[in-house]
């Protein structure tokens, strides 16, 4: 639960992670629930990509990162997808 200290809601973070390829986009339709550890893992990947400490928590640096203007193309961190079907590196996205 959001205790009010965080400037970004968990929903915002969740949507951000889906939008930029840190969580499967299919979650947008399925509303799939992720375990705490899966979410932390996705946040860590975002933090590593953004060159901030990989705490797995929505800390201040992460909030700042999420608010930074950016390109709309996803970061395509394949390993962020938890479905085993997705570990096919031979497949390339043609475009976004």
């Amino acid at each position, binding site marked *: 639960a959001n205790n009010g200290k965080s400037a970004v809601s968990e929903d915002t973070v969740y949507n951000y992670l889906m939008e*930029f*390829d840190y969580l*499967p*986009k*299919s979650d*947008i*339709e*399925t509303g*799939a629930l992720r375990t705490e550890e899966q979410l932390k893992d996705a946040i860590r990947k975002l933090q*590593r*990509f*953004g*060159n901030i400490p990989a705490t797995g928590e929505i800390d201040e640096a992460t909030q700042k*990162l999420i*608010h*930074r*203007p*950016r*390109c*709309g*193309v*996803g*970061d*395509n961190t394949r390993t962020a*997808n938890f*479905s085993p*079907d*997705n570990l096919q590196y031979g*497949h*390339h*996205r*043609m*475009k*976004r």
Partner: protein
Amino acid sequence: YVLQGPKWDKTDLTWSLVNWTMEDAPQIRRALTEALSVWAHSSKLTFREVRSDQADIQVLFARGDHGDGYKFDGPGMVLAHAFYPGVGRGGDAHFDADEKWHFTRGERGDSTNFLGVAVHEFGHSLGLGHSSDQNAIMYPWYHDNEVDINLPADDRNAIQQLYGSKDKTWGPFKPPTRPKTPPTTTTTTTTTTRRPLVYYPQNRHNEPYDPRRRYPYNNNPHQRDRKLPTTTTYRPRTDSPPHPTRTWYPPPQPTKPKKLKPDTCHTTYDAISIIRREIFIFRGQFLWRIGDHGLYPGYPTYTHRLWAELPKNFSKVDAVYENKDRKIVFFIGRYYYVFDSVTLVSGYPQPLTSLGLPQSLTHIDAAFVWGYNNRTYLTSGTLYWRLDEDTGRVELDYPRDMSIWRGIGYNIDAAFKYTNGKTYFFKGYGYWEFNDDLMEVAHPRPKLSARKWMHCPRLVNEVDEEQT
């Protein structure tokens, strides 16, 4: 750095600015020219501005939902996006018109440096993905650095791996004794002052971008055909259901065919589904049946021969699927029919409204079980619904816009889940495989249905796209 997807198969690329505001046009074109010259400086690439909707890289400004499935979000956050090399939208770069841009060097304040963003987006247009190197141009987050003609090492290595550097011949198949290709002259890099700017007719009034100009399977919501009336006045139905709920025996046989049988290797599909582990494809009053040993001989045949209790004069099956109780559900016009094998279940047909669908809905385009979650979806025009099989009604959060199924577009013909668990969408003579995790088509260009599903041979002069 990350090389993403394909690269261009040529090094002389064309670009075109699609829309602009009159006062900014010269600055924008200058900035775009400069942005491209950054990539040209470190590679064999050359760029030429053209005034054509056939340019490799089309640049445009758009706001909000602009028809490509990737909405802009107003000022801040997402600034722009671009498409990786390819046909159609491939290579195109879109900038959020709601951003406060500045187009000249040295300008600061609360506005965003267009040149820096443009260099980044063109990186995508050329085949580069995002890099986690925060000094790289391809770092996804905006940094307000002055743009240097010399790329950071990460980006330079990436672009040279794709297109070679200016001072080297490239390509593994050139013999070492062969003389070097003369370096490309910079005079071909841009043509910004060669010709006066001519406005496209469609942009004289700064009209919105219309992707239909180039792509047959577009989904521009501003331009699409509105086949699904949403505001028309509902007239109470006075006709009776097209087929009474009674059992026919013997089944009525159509006496004279209204149309010739469709050509197996050259037809569109109205509906397709796996029924009892076999593929059934419907077109007009006919169907094909494909089992373990391929297409059954004698097909296409009349759909009535198998499901005699379908209405006598139906022109086509709109959609069909096998539900979790293994009942076969046909959608024809404003009604749906549930069959237990080939017997119409008592109480059917029922109107679409009994599923919770709106009165205004005239038909269903496709009904399919999505392999990702095994839930049932219905589509019509620009909208789709999720069906709760337990309540027999569509769920409350629906309808939603079809654009979430990225790359599919609107007004599809059919969809189904194949035995491999993947979902396929059909439109015209083509189909797309869907990537469930990325929520987008696995291949942006549709493939020919006849080749895959009917196993039709390739024509002599037909390009084999998969081999290519």
